[in-house]
């Protein structure tokens, strides 16, 4: 735990964190890592996001894939819950909808391992504050 005591400290910390993250998704960086985010808001959990998250964690480890699985809030595609976002270093993040453990298996084997296209991708349909 770091107690932040000035705006300068805060800005420095933010820059450090940003650098870490971009390093993580930089293909050229040997420490880069595959990131999986699972939407874990009420809707997601109710549709079975928790077992999907557990499955992803266990299976990626079992299959020796260097990956970081984290939870996040609602991705707002409620109709397609559970939803997950997969970021492979050097590639744009991809959101998958209606993810069951079976689907998760397919995503690991085909998308993450082989880089094949997998059905169920939800196109991002919004702009962010950074792009606008």
């Amino acid at each position, binding site marked *: 735990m770091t107690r932040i005591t000035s705006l300068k400290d805060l800005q420095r910390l933010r820059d450090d964190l940003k650098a870490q993250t971009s390093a993580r998704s930089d293909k050229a960086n040997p420490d880069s890592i595959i990131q999986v985010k699972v939407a874990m808001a009420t809707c997601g959990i109710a549709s079975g996001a928790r077992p999907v998250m557990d499955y992803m964690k266990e299976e990626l480890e079992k299959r020796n894939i260097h990956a970081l699985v984290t939870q996040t*809030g609602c991705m707002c595609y409620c*109709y397609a819950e559970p939803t997950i976002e997969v970021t492979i270093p050097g590639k744009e993040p991809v959101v998958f909808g209606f993810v069951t453990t079976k689907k998760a298996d397919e995503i690991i084997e085909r998308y993450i391992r082989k880089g094949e296209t997998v059905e169920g991708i939800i196109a991002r349909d*919004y702009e962010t504050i950074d792009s606008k």
Partner: protein
Amino acid sequence: MAKKQLRIALRNCGVIDPERIEEYIERDGYLALGKVLTELSPEAAIEIIKKSGLRGRGGGGFSTGLKWDITRRVKADQKYVVCNADEGDPGAFMDRSVLEGDPHSVIEAMAINGYCTGASKGLVYIRAEYPLAIERLKIAMKQASEWGFLGTNILGTGFNFEIEIRYGAGAFVCGEETALIHSMEGLRGEPTVKPPFPSESGYLEKPTNVNNVETYANVPVIINKGWEWFAGIGTEKSKGTKVFALAGKINKVGLIEVPMGTTLREVIFEIGGGLQDGATFKAVQTGGPSGGCLMEKHLDIPIDYDNLIAAGSMMGSGGMIVMDDANCMVSIAKFYLEFTVEESCGKCSPCRIGNKRLFELLEKITGGNGTPEDLDKLRNLSHVIKDTSLCGLGQTSPNPVLSTLENFYEEYREHVFDKKCRSSVCKSLMMYIIDAEKCIGCTLCARNCPVNAITGERKLAHYIDPEKCIKCGACMEKCKFGAIFIN
């Protein structure tokens, strides 16, 4: 093609891990607070919010900056800022999503608000029905205190601010500021007459600034990116974006955030992907129980506070429910009135008794007993309730009735004059009939009728006694020959 949505309030939802403050900080979290505390006077910070044109996202649409300024100007030894997270509109869940996905943005905005208004204490009034949001908010509050964004001497500036949680307990009326304040004081959530406004005399009779979750979620971005940026989005009088909870008979149910001025058509057909199963659009209900039902001809209206009111509905907190031909509009109005009757606090007579009478009139009409006079009564009573009720709940509760009367009068007319419900929702107006031509007398329907309303000889056409029929539809479901139809 440019994308229709722009996520400001939802910027971090589905992006960061809400339980890790580092991820919030990485995305410029608490930078706005730092900037305000270090570089701006309260007046200057309020000026930014004012100029941005941000208006209350809970439904009222009051200028947020102005509200802050009023609270700042009142002299008092103690002031409070309150986050209204009692999202009570059925069909709206953006506040829950923000709190579950990005709780720090609300904490940061409340602290900014505290600095601007001179309050050292914040309260979050949150629905007890949102356990996950409460949990995440608590984690975020703990982290914010540990990291020095809450507590004493925040960011070394000498500013102190802390937040407490108060729980709602299932009362829609507590979305109203004064009722909410009474509820936080441990009283019945009854509203009181305004003025005095909470900005002058609120929680424990101290100046209190109340904003809802979505409003707060916009604040840090406005500080970071500047008011000019925010004011460049939206329409002339409604700036920025609005989050809508798209639900009902629509393909892509979910949360969307669009710039003010986007049309209903764009929202429903482009972002929402149109109606399910190719159904025909009939109505869209906006503004929750206080709003109204809009129809086809309203689809090209650019959404903002004023346009929706002009069309007979309102922004409300952003519920948007799409309906198709299977929805009976009289029944929809009745559904909303039933809600209002249950949620009225009972303090003022027009809301307590008037809404009950409105509901009874609608029950009478959907029950097949409506008279032409009842339609006049509905209209007159609605106007008096709006004109005389004490708080926002009663002042808007007849909106679903008035808007459906205006936009779907034909359906009311059919219920009253023709005794018909075109959507086959009102059971009392339905009649199951056996087509003697098609019936072969298999007796299956008669055997499945729970009330023995069907008679007939084997191999001869059967008959349904309309007096006995309870309109359960079992016969129609069982008939293999399509001989039973609804009139």
